[in-house]
């Protein structure tokens, strides 16, 4: 049976840093996989997947977090996912007569 996408929490814990929660998240896209294995044992590839988190609240990330590796955790609302990821970018968009919107982008990384 379909699961209503509600009551979702999204957190990002960069290695060596404390866990921060994304606030007012309105869109999550988790894409695992995408490239053929490049290691002999089939466990590693350059394209392991991507994650995008879009929110109205401040993304709680900064330029200092760029290219840091950590753990992304989503829970609730049918989105029970925890992946190791590297933060690769963040977008901020402002439109006249609208609210500011933030998007943070990650590449899935091996453990």
């Amino acid at each position, binding site marked *: 049976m379909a699961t209503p996408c509600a*009551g979702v929490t999204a957190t990002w814990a960069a290695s060596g840093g404390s866990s921060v929660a994304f606030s007012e998240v309105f869109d999550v896209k988790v894409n695992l996989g995408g490239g053929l294995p490049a290691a002999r044992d089939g466990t590693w590839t350059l394209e392991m997947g991507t994650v995008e988190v879009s929110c*109205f609240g401040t993304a709680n990330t900064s330029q200092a977090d760029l290219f840091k590796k950590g753990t992304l955790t989503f829970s609730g*609302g049918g989105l029970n996912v925890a992946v190791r990821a590297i933060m690769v970018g963040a977008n901020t968009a402002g439109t006249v007569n609208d609210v500011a919107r933030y998007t943070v982008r990650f590449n899935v990384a091996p453990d």
Partner: protein
Amino acid sequence: MSTTPHDGSGTVISFAGTNFTARTISVAFNNPAAEDLIDVSHLGLTAGNSVLTMGRPLTGSATDTGQEVTVEYLGKNLIADQSTGTLVITHNGVQLLSRAATCNSTTLNFNTNEAITGTSTFKIARS
């Protein structure tokens, strides 16, 4: 002869003292202050919560009264855009509207073997 309340016949419309042979009259009153809301619902809301909204940061145009009348009429009466006058609508002798108005647009149609028709749109000033 009795008239039915939903019958548009017997309606007279005039602008700046000139009567129109109207075929169709459309009167629209909209509240310009009605909030155009932004949906700021997020995934953190739980099932059963209400949709979260907030008003737009900017208000509507100061010159928008939200009241408009469109008239489709017979004849080659060319009403200039931006012309002003009093728009009066009377139905079976009962005045429904008498308000200062500005013509926003006029379109005249000249078709072979057909009557000349025109359509004008008026912005009505708030009383």
